[in-house]
């Protein structure tokens, strides 16, 4: 090794050590734990090595429920939030008056605390001995019966969770898409106008390709974010998510580590690895699909 490269490595050393200790080592460790049966933190012992942890969690109804919940959440909220953000951004981009006001309004949820928003949703949706909640009040105006959104049927709870998630992620997506739309040169639209291009064709052939890199970015980060959902469910349904039947994969990992049933790091590690594999697979698929449809040279 030459003197120059030794110096280079010396400069890199702090970062390498830091990342090694806090990022690479834990990653490897989680992978190792996931194959060690009944690992115990306190005694640093384990019963054996094998795929027992995986076969356990894959048969655990709570984990299966968490996977189902997470997938439903992902499949509903990513397209809905991205689509809604696109519609709102297009609308914002086409108005001139009050645009700044609306931009601010749409951005507010982004700077609001998740748990505070959860409390507001509770007020909107929760039934108490005194009131059926604001949403039920509105439902009653149309003659619909009261629904228990927080402690009632699964579909109602899922609806609230999805609504909450969409509402939370919307501002960031609107922010990204409005700036992407604003950066498309007006000349393209003028050229399309002079050529009498129908509005939908302008959208499909000009706007969409031009902002496609931003959309792909939002879809990929949206998938990853939704797969890692946890705090949103806690904010709405409390910490005992298994009992509410609304747990997510990350929630399951957390419960396995610290929750009331707590103290099973091996199961938690296996669940974390399963989540990692799912996210990796989806992201790779996303990238492969988008490569065909995205235009980066603008």
């Amino acid at each position: 090794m030459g003197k120059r490269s030794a110096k280079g490595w010396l400069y890199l050393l702090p970062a390498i050590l830091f990342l090694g200790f806090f990022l690479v080592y834990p990653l490897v460790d989680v992978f190792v734990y996931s194959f060690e049966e009944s690992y115990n933190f306190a005694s640093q012992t384990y019963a054996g090595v094998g795929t027992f942890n995986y076969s356990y969690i894959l048969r655990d109804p709570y984990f299966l429920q968490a996977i189902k919940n997470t997938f439903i959440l992902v499949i509903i909220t990513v397209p809905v939030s991205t689509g809604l953000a696109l519609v709102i951004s297009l609308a914002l981009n086409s108005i001139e008056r009050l645009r700044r006001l609306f931009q601010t309004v749409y951005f507010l949820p982004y700077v609001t605390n998740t748990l505070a928003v959860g409390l507001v949703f509770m007020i909107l949706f929760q039934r108490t001995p005194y009131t059926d909640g604001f949403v039920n009040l509105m439902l009653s105006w149309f003659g619909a019966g009261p629904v228990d959104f927080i402690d009632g049927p699964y579909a109602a709870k899922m609806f609230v969770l999805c609504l909450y998630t969409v509402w939370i992620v919307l501002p960031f997506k609107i922010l990204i898409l409005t700036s992407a739309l604003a950066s498309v040169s007006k000349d393209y639209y003028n050229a399309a106008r002079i050529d009498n291009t129908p509005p939908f064709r302008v959208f499909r052939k000009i706007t969409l390709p031009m902002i496609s890199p931003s959309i792909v970015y939002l879809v990929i980060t949206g998938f990853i974010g939704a797969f890692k959902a946890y705090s949103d469910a806690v904010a709405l349904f409390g910490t005992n998510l298994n009992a509410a039947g609304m747990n997510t994969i990350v929630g399951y990992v957390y419960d396995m580590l610290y929750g009331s049933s707590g103290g099973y790091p091996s199961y938690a590690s296996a669940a974390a690895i399963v989540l990692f594999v799912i996210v990796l697979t989806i992201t790779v698929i996303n990238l492969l699909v988008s490569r065909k449809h995205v235009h980066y040279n603008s």
Partner: protein
Amino acid sequence: MKVSVRDLTKIFPARGRKKGEDVVAAGHVSFEIEDGELIGLLGPSGCGKSTILNLLCGLLQPTEGRIFFGEEDVTDLPAEQRGVGMVFQNYALYPHLTVMQNIMFPLQNFKGDRKLSREEIKKRTDEAARLVQIDGLMDRKPAELSGGQQQRVAIARALVKMPRILLMDEPLSNLDARLRLQTREEIRRIQRETGITTVFVTHDQDEAMSISDRIIVMQSGVVNQIGKPQEVYDSPANLFVAKFLGNPQINTFRGAVRGGEVYVGGDCILPADGIPDGEVIVGVRPEGLIPAPDGALGCRLRGVEVMGRDISVLAEHDASEAATVRSIVSAENIAMLGGGTVRFDIKPGKAFVFAADTGLRLDGRRADG
């Protein structure tokens, strides 16, 4: 297609909290373009020439005035329905589409009776590509083309739908000098072959003079003169036009008319038929100053620039508006120069007299433009 513009005015209202002045981008502009003509809309930046172009294509609505294509009043017709072709300054080619897709884009918008079959679209796209000689590059993306090739694609896209008129906004400004010469001849050729009425905007007088049938010279939103390039050059309507056309620029002197003669400094240089006494500006083209031992105008000699075919004689004069008085003569005449002063004969037809205050032409020789 004949184009008539009548009394066209565009005012951009003042914006922002501090109310400034309204901007008159075009004030009572009128002109007629004959079928098949190539018109150069010429003026310095900010003179309103691009505004006129945007009014013609319908991207802007006039404050006042009418626009006719042939007999049809198109003033209230939106840009979508005017059927014009436009070449934008930066070409505005869709970067994610290939050359072929870019060119066929306008054809695919045709609806109803005008809707074209797939074969028809292909055929017309190929024709347009051949016309501008880019038929070998159909599968490239715009980013993979040179500036000149992009320009051709933009022209093909504008022509493919057989527009009623073709508008070009500074079509050559993004090209380097050599390509500019080549492309302007190309534009001329394409315009001749298609016979399409064309308006192109430029701030480059060489460009406008070399390819236009007629030029329209604008300044501050107002048309100063309309005419054949040579006529406008030979007989400018005012001082601005005289200064704007011609390279090197015209020499201008502060002078005065006294008793039917034009004086610059102490020298009487021109007869002034019918011009009342008063302050004037005298403009003399560089080729109109001919060194002669007994010439009318005396200047201090500063030097000589040899440029091969011609030489420039550089001199100074106290009444000159610019620091340097320039005369262009052919290289054989160099021998007669010598000493500290040089005298010039003024060639008739190359010198113009303008009012000192308004800049309007005073001597009568201006042709109708």
